[in-house]
């Protein structure tokens, strides 16, 4: 399983010199199997570049959306495969208690918010609502479960025969928990993340910033580390950086959190372009640049 980060930013795209190192594009992660099957996790602005480099001959893609906040769908209309009549595109995302997925997505993919109607896309589009029973896509087994975040939001657990990835980019498991974390049984997202080789998790805030944002649906870096420790993950990638945080801010917040928590596992701040190879039930290679990985 090869995992590539195409967008790591939370809330709104924040391009600029001050965010060039960790990236300004919003959430988008590519998960590629050895046989070439590709899953895309969220369709933030990072998906545009992924679509521009789409492999020739690959005719199916599954886009797994955690929720429909703009920073997770804004790139969808700029994803080239949607306009290719040879492509079979499957979009998986949560419905709401009162609206099905098609209606919810069409709110964005229709005028006045976007010039093209969802129904007018050239690809063969299939919409699927999650959570549902375990999904099998090529060699991937995918499990979706609702997590603590405003509005219907899921996280994903993706397994192959030899690796497990957990993806919870917008997640506030510490909400209302005085001494976070409590037992696994009462912790949002635990079932998705347990024993994962790689956990990509919300870490939007510095610890000092969390209190004034409680209930907004996000975690501090410290909380992400505590959650990862509870779930016994092997590598935590701290994701969904706050748009107001410069690269230097991310470095400072990350260093302070890891110094305070002393995690017994690997922790990395998510960096746009980073690639993680997961195999033999453990990550075998650290982050490399996307360029290097593609060249290899």
């Amino acid at each position, binding site marked *: 399983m090869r995992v590539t980060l195409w967008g790591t930013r939370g809330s709104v795209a924040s391009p600029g010199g001050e965010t060039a190192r960790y990236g300004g594009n919003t959430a988008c992660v590519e998960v590629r199997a050895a046989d070439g099957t590709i899953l895309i996790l969220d369709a933030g602005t990072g998906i545009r570049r992924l679509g521009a480099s789409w492999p020739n001959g690959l005719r199916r893609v599954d886009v797994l959306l955690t929720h429909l906040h703009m920073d997770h769908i804004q790139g969808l209309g700029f994803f080239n495969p949607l306009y290719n009549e040879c492509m079979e595109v499957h979009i998986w995302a949560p419905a709401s*208690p009162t609206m099905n997925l098609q209606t919810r997505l069409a709110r964005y993919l229709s005028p006045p918010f976007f010039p093209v109607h969802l129904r007018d896309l050239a690809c063969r589009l299939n919409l699927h*609502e999650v*959570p549902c029973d375990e999904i099998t896509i090529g060699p991937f087994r995918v499990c979706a479960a*609702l997590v*603590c975040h405003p509005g219907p939001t899921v996280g994903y657990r993706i397994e192959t025969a030899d690796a497990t990835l957990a993806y919870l980019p917008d997640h506030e498991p510490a909400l209302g928990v005085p001494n976070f974390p409590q037992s696994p*049984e*009462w912790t949002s*997202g635990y079932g998705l993340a347990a024993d994962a080789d790689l956990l990509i998790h919300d870490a939007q805030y510095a610890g000092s910033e969390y209190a004034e944002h409680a209930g907004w649906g996000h975690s501090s870096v410290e909380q992400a580390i505590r959650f990862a420790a509870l779930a016994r993950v092997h590598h935590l990638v701290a994701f969904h950086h706050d748009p107001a945080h410069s690269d230097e801010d991310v470095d400072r917040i990350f260093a302070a959190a890891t110094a305070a928590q002393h995690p017994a596992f690997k922790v990395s701040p998510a960096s746009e372009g980073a690639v993680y190879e997961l195999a033999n039930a453990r990550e075998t290679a650290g982050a490399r640049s996307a360029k290097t990985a593609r060249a290899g």
Partner: protein
Amino acid sequence: MPQREIEVILTRQLASYLTLPIFIVGPDGTLIFYNEPAEAILGHRFEETGEMPAQEWAAAYAATDDADQPLAANDIPLMIALREARPVHGSVAIRGRDRVRRRIEVTAFPLIGQARRHLGAVAIFWEVR
């Protein structure tokens, strides 16, 4: 132990912040949590009892109706809300673990989550003096 459904986790977290007594059961009626204000009426702490099957907690609290007739577990408002997936209001008397008999008003509602999953039920109750 597997993780509980997010709606149940959030219900417990909300209950732990409210001063109204709240009692939560799972899909089969098993007691899974009650908050501190409920402890004062039930006569013991949740940590002392832990989870309890429906028949067990119904027997332990010896619920009776307005005429002081014993109520079967299935006739307790919370269990009606769970079984019939609708809100229920009623008045019952219970005996806490402290052996004190108290008359309480109960409003119970089902926990029906995303995709209409039946996740349990919640009772909000208060003592009538």
